[in-house]
């Protein structure tokens, strides 16, 4: 059983950052959370004519890639580059690579649609004479799911193992599990994990076809909730083993729990059985009880079925008393980047004594029966759990905590 015991050793989030519609980097993100601001606004993206709100990151198009990486040029990789440039994240990775060696730092990133926007645009410019796509369209370095990990690895000059996890909206939570296994197996000493997903027509029109998008900024757990608001984000974490001495307010990854629903491709199990199993597994991996968790960052997409299923699962594991909220009212649903974005928000919450209250929600649905936060609570938090669930019935929960949990 030593292997199982080893599988629960904590890891250090030695550096982290995010770019979303809430802002660039940690400071802007925290300021927006404290101000209870939403980054959601009526959709103005590209040629989209849908009556919905999106969380678009400003200035993505004004971030050209360096000439050496120009083949990777697409919205998703530009957004990734914006993320790498915040909070001196790339510098922290460079120090880690200098310490451990470039081949000992892995890259594990989540995305659902990568640079598919590039293909959507290319299909508008098919050559009528021979049916071919534009000559400069580069499938491998834009559209392919691996493109974002390939790009980030080159931008950071890393040579370690790399993979993209693409399991829809749990993708960038599950990367923490993949990276953790590579560190535990001593294949690597550190990993850049995270998620990058950017606005594209496939997800906007796809969720619309499923009647899952709201016309208003999404209202998770509200009595009137009627769908999601799609957004985009890049969130990165540098994961390393916990050194012997570490700051008390350092944030640790304590547990990762994963499960599958075995139920339906686009609807969660109505009683949230898969979600429940993921939360229980994450707590077990962290060697914690439900009562040890101070705050739950809910998946909380704002669809009728997700919030209902998730609340069943939360009640089954935690009862009705653990405070929770979905930050998607503020950030929107960044799909494959949501897990990492919310891990970053949880890390900010832990280090800044902030339980972020849900934004946009005014009347929590009483039938959901959980302690849904409508206002920010300023108080020390020791440990949090963050949920990410996705199409195909894929579930992942993360437990994060302060290095010194305190009394």
């Amino acid at each position: 059983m030593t292997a199982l015991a080893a599988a629960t050793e904590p890891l250090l989030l030695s550096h982290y950052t995010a770019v979303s519609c809430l802002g660039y980097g940690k400071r802007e993100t925290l300021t927006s959370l404290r101000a209870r601001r939403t980054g959601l606004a009526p959709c103005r993206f590209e040629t989209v004519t849908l009556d919905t709100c999106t969380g678009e990151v400003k200035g993505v198009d004004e971030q050209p890639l360096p000439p050496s990486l120009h083949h990777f040029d697409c919205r998703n990789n530009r957004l990734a580059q914006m993320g790498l440039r915040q909070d001196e994240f790339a510098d922290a990775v460079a120090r880690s690579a200098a310490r451990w060696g470039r081949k000992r730092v892995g890259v594990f990133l989540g995305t659902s649609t990568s640079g598919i926007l590039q293909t959507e645009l290319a299909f508008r410019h098919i050559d009528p004479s021979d049916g071919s796509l534009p000559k400069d369209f580069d499938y491998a370095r834009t559209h392919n799911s691996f493109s974002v990990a390939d790009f980030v690895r080159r931008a950071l000059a890393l040579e370690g193992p790399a993979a993209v996890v693409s399991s829809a909206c749990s993708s960038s939570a599950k990367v923490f599990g993949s990276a953790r296994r590579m560190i535990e197996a001593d294949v690597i000493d550190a990993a850049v994990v995270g998620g990058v997903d950017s606005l594209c027509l496939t997800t906007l029109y796809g969720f619309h076809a499923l009647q899952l998008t709201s016309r208003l900024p999404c209202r998770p757990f509200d009595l009137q909730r009627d769908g999601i608001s799609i957004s985009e984000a890049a969130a990165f974490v540098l994961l390393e083993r916990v050194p012997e001495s570490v700051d008390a307010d350092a944030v640790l990854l304590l547990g990762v729990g994963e499960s599958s629903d075995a139920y339906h491709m686009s609807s969660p199990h109505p009683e949230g059985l898969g979600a429940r199993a993921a939360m229980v597994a994450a707590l077990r991996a962290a060697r914690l009880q439900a009562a040890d968790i101070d705050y739950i960052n809910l998946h909380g997409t704002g669809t009728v079925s997700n919030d209902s299923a998730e609340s069943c699962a939360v009640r089954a594991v935690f009862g009705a008393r653990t405070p929770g909220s979905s930050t998607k009212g503020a950030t929107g649903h960044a799909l494959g980047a949501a897990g990492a974005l919310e891990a970053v928000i949880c890390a900010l919450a832990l280090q800044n004594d902030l339980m972020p209250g849900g934004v946009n929600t005014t009347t929590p649905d009483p039938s959901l029966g959980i302690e849904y936060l409508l206002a920010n609570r300023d108080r020390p938090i020791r440990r949090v759990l963050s949920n990410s669930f996705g199409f195909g019935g894929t579930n992942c929960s993360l437990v994060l905590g302060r290095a010194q949990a305190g009394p």
Partner: protein
Amino acid sequence: MTPLVATIEGIGLIGPGLQDWPSSRELLLGLKPFTPRPTVLPLPEGLPAAERRRMGRVVKLALAVGTQAIREAGAEAASLPTVFTSSGGDGQNCHEICRSLAQEERQLSPTRFHNSVHNAASGYWSIATGSTAPANVLCAFDASFASGLLEAVAQVSLAAMRVLLVAYDAEYPPPLHEKRPISDAFGVAFVLAPDETGAHRGARIRIGLSEAPADRLSEPQLEQLRLSIPAARSLPLLVQLARREPGRVGVEYLDGRSLATEVL
């Protein structure tokens, strides 16, 4: 350091001219002439007819090789964690979506959309087998097979549990085909068991990253196949397994390097 070791208890294999693992051994060894023919996909089991109709080729392929491997291993699919790995997912479905979105009237079918996720095969597998175990779903372009094998063997070694690995790829229709010329459908699946279970049958493998390039195959048709479908990058290992003798092969990983795979 955790040795990355596992026993392959069951193998599923479908590709051009390859119907399953037992009948492919002699072809891979050159004991019978290998003639690539268009890949034939069996009908998936365990799902209602309506669901089967909605699945793309790539999902049928993944389910079929997964089922073959489980059967050979005599394993319980419902309790097995899985690692699915693919370079591109469902190419036909992706083509239809991009075509619809390029038209004036942007009509997307809900089914097309939920089938577009990279984890569609994993989702259908979980529904078909009733498995609520964790499923990881990877992509690493042409290194997708090696990345999946690395992840799966790490899971087996660390958690001391059996894991099902499914690597699969199928073609894009034109015009994407010219940009990503995958020739046909190819899938391979392994049921991997931990070392300490004293697994009674199957080949033991040890894996590790290597600076050496991937091994090529001496038989030209097989080498052609290896290069034309990402999941077929597994062929050097499959040939070594077909030999039923110890040996070390490199399967394609990143940067022209390989994942060294030693059959013990």
